């Protein structure tokens, strides 16, 4: 009985924590972007403008929830649910601290990869179900982008898996006790960050959305809380990828002085800020440039990383 309550506490704690982070990111992102553009950003509602999130939420709930008559209704409604669900599912395998995690899957990493591939369906379906040309173009781009970037996202992580000898995220963190994987797996880290940005379709790889070309891409027809779901899904994606970078390459909960969970969140927060910095500074590449970068640079790089890691591991006989 006590065990069940403990699990429930962890489950709801994780859900609450990550939903709060995702919601708070609305404010964090606007504030940070503003700071980097020599502005202040939202600083009026509550202390430091923190209640801006609540104001935004109230606003988005009160908006008209409109479904276009030309849309494919069931799919149109389902699409935003999928993105949030798949992102939330991935959080289950994350170890926040030794023994603190929703499930201790021994194929945790594979589960994450599977869930992140499912997230693509949301965007593609949203683009298709909207029944408008810009949405369709956005959905199409999302499909192609995910297809190409998914490949070496998985491959870039295989080096880590080989070094740790496990797909279990907790074991991977434990394996970094001596040295964080960001040093031996530097290439893997670089490739994973780039594919992670593409995976969450954030700037500079936000081609499915591309306000300046496709209105708003796949969610051009969405309004109200459905649009909000896409937004929360995107922020959940950022949090997820940041948490994974921290877990896989920067030693997760490992760190001196502070308790493990604090280290986990500090590291995650740093990478979240990195995501926002990317958005603040880099321009969006053209569509064919994105594809060329994916297949011609990133795939060979990740393959080379895999080979070299394997060769070194074999040679040292681990």
């Amino acid at each position, binding site marked *: 009985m006590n065990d069940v309550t403990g699990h429930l506490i962890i489950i709801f704690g994780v859900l609450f924590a990550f939903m709060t982070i995702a919601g708070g990111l609305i404010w964090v992102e606007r504030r940070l972007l503003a700071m*980097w553009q*020599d502005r*202040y950003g939202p600083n009026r509602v509550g202390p430091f403008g923190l209640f801006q999130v609540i104001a935004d939420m109230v606003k988005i709930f009160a908006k008209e929830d409109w479904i276009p008559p030309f849309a494919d209704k069931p799919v149109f409604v389902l699409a935003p649910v999928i993105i949030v669900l798949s992102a939330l599912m991935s959080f289950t395998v994350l170890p926040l601290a030794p023994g603190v995690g929703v499930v201790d899957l021994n194929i945790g990493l594979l589960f994450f990869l599977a869930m992140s591939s499912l997230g693509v369906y949301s965007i593609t379906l949203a683009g298709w179900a909207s029944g408008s040309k810009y949405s369709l173009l956005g959905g199409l781009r999302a499909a192609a982008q995910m297809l190409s970037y998914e490949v070496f996202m998985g491959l870039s992580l295989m080096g880590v898996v080989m070094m740790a000898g496990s797909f279990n995220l907790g074991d991977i963190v434990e394996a970094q006790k001596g040295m964080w994987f960001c040093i031996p797996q530097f290439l893997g880290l670089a490739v994973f960050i780039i594919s992670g940005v593409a995976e969450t379709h954030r700037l500079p790889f936000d081609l499915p959305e591309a306000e300046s070309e496709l209105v708003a891409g796949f969610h051009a027809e969405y309004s109200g809380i459905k649009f909000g779901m896409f937004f929360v899904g995107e922020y959940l994606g950022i949090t997820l990828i940041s948490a994974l970078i921290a877990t896989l390459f920067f030693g997760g909960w490992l760190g001196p002085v502070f308790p493990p969970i604090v280290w986990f969140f500090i590291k995650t927060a740093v990478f979240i800020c990195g995501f926002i*910095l990317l958005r*603040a*500074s*880099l321009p969006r590449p053209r569509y064919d440039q994105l594809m060329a970068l994916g297949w011609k640079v990133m795939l060979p790089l990740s393959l080379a990383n895999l080979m070299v890691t394997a060769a070194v591991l074999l040679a040292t006989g681990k």
Partner: protein
Amino acid sequence: MLSLLKTMWTVFLHLFRRKITVSYPEEKPYVPPRWRGRIILSCDPDGGERCVACYLCAVACPVDCIALQAAEDEHGRRYPEFFRINFSRCIFCGFCEEACPAYAIQLTTDFEMGEYKRQNLVYEKEDLLISGPGKYPGYNFYRTAGLSIEGKDKGEAENELPPVDVRGIMP
């Protein structure tokens, strides 16, 4: 690749720059003295209304936001019976101020005129009239103009010569 990292670093350093934003209600921006803001009607140093209800401001106004009705008091002085400016139409171009021969209508540096009801932006004469002379401290139209009113005949104004007797033959 290197240029991308350099860009990111430069953008990051902007975190420590001084912010350009002026946080307005707490921190007032500099307003130049010739700012064209809320319109007022001034009075001459003796306390009389300057406006002589000549309609020139209403004619000059490109958006027709000024309405007035001329009247004349028992001393022969013209004054506006009512004077109404619809600030929801006003574009603060300052043409009325330029057109005014009596320096009566003037634009001020006040711009905080927000209202919840549109009707409240229609200012009547009692809202517009101020007690002071505004930008032109010493000026009094009736004391300098050659118009005869009660207590001041032709030729009695400041710097004004007595009227020429056009029928006289003396030089």
